[in-house]
């Protein structure tokens, strides 16, 4: 199992370094792939309209593929998931669970927004799409920035504890006086509150591809297929974000494989502060606050 993960990692690293060496090529490839899958979605939708057999399956597979490739673009919280994987002690299983929950929650929110908007208050397609871009995207960036700053804060607290107390505060089991949160505890993403914050901060911004598909499905009277297709799209984005989760956690492991336990007092909080800052800075940049 471990070998398989390492092998997957090696491929992922090689491919991403190759593609990322020239960012515009990667972006161009992603845009072309998205375009291709979008048109497959359209063919499947027309097939559903005319009652062609296999159209529903074609739609689900096209949206799944589209979701995966689309997640390479903006949105879907890659930098938050990657940052949390790098800078906290979250387990792989938990982070993948969070990645999947965020993507599915994002898909469900898109369905509620579009179908709810059309049904309840008869908004126009343009209004939904503008609301997503102008209100919900910034809201997401602000929420993610807060999580980044929380990580920084926890890291700072850990550093203060590490330098204050005379002995190691790595473990909470030293059997003596009570501690402020240990590095261990501060670095976890275990509480329900943490998990909810992470999932919501990503999910609040619906995917534009999902919005378009739902607008089309609503008008073409294919509402249920449209909703399930958007959930398939969410699964696709979940797959990409899970890859990000796995690689960031594996990367984090490299730091600790070569660090002795004493230095962990400072190394771990330092990395937490660093990634928290990166998450916050990326959010500020996306909000247009940094020129």
């Amino acid at each position: 199992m471990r070998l398989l993960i390492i092998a997957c990692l090696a491929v992922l690293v090689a491919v991403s370094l190759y593609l990322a060496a020239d960012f515009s090529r990667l972006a161009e490839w992603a845009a072309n792939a998205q375009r291709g899958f979008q048109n497959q979605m359209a063919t499947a939708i027309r097939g559903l309209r005319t009652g062609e057999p296999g159209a529903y399956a074609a739609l689900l597979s096209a949206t799944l593929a589209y979701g995966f490739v689309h997640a390479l673009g903006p949105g879907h919280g890659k930098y938050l998931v990657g940052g949390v994987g790098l800078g906290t002690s979250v387990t792989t299983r938990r982070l993948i669970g969070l990645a999947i929950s965020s993507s599915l929650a994002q898909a469900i929110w898109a369905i509620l927004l579009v179908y709810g908007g059309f049904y309840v208050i008869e908004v126009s397609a343009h209004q939904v799409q503008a609301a997503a871009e102008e209100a919900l995207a910034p809201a997401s960036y602000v929420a993610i920035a807060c999580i980044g700053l929380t990580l920084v804060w926890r890291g700072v607290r850990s550093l203060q504890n590490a330098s204050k107390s005379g002995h190691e505060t790595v473990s909470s089991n030293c059997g003596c006086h009570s501690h402020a949160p240990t590095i261990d505890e501060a670095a976890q993403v275990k509480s329900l509150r943490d998990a909810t914050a992470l999932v919501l901060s990503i999910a609040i911004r619906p995917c534009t591809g999902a919005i378009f598909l739902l607008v089309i499905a609503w008008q073409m009277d294919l509402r249920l297929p449209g909703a399930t297709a958007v959930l398939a799209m969410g699964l696709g984005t979940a797959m990409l974000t899970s890859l990000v989760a796995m690689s960031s956690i594996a990367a984090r492991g490299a730091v600790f494989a070569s660090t002795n336990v004493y230095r962990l007092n400072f190394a771990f909080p330092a990395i937490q502060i660093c990634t928290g800052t990166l998450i916050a800075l990326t959010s500020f940049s996306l909000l247009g606050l940094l020129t």
Partner: protein
Amino acid sequence: MRIHDLSSSTCERATAPLCALAFAAALLVFILPAQAHPHVFVDGGVDFVFDESGKLDALKVTWLYDEFESLYILSSNKLSLTADGKLGEEDRQQLIRLRSNWPDDFEGSAHLSVDGAAVQLSRPADFDANLINGQLQMTFTRHLDQPVQLNRSKAELAFYEATYFYAFAVTKNPRLLGAESSCTANVIPFEADAQDDVLKSALAKLSREETPDIADVGAFFADRITLQCAS
């Protein structure tokens, strides 16, 4: 979960270099470009219309939208397909009416120049729309304010939208319509160089609602059609 448990995670000492690379790759999530611009890809082309005296009189422009975009255009205008997947005549006429109103600040896709000097084009007229194999095709005419006798002048048509929200591409061979003319048209597709990639990366970071700072940025990526006449 204890901190020291982390060292017994996937990456052990032997694979530390690989994991260091993974660390670097993981940091990419912070700097991968957004690629949110352009948002709509449109294929198409331009035909050149000559009057009886051999002057270039008008341009006939064709826009061909992607299948998904076509469905979205119909749906967001509250139009649908018939049971056999086609566009009904009433809906087609409604679509023509809705798409004929260009915003005041929208210049369109056709940018004509003769010997380097820009030629003024009128607002579009004679709109038509059809759904062909799931793709929405729109055609319209743009008259030249002043018809031009080309003689040996070189005319160039750059096919782009100024803000690069729309990425236009010439996929239809240009035709010469109207009176007999001794002109030839050639398509010069856009070819990227290093500077274009830098510009594209900068544009990629823009969201759907943002406009690029650079005026007429679409021109950098335009396909062009040259028109050369013998006399």
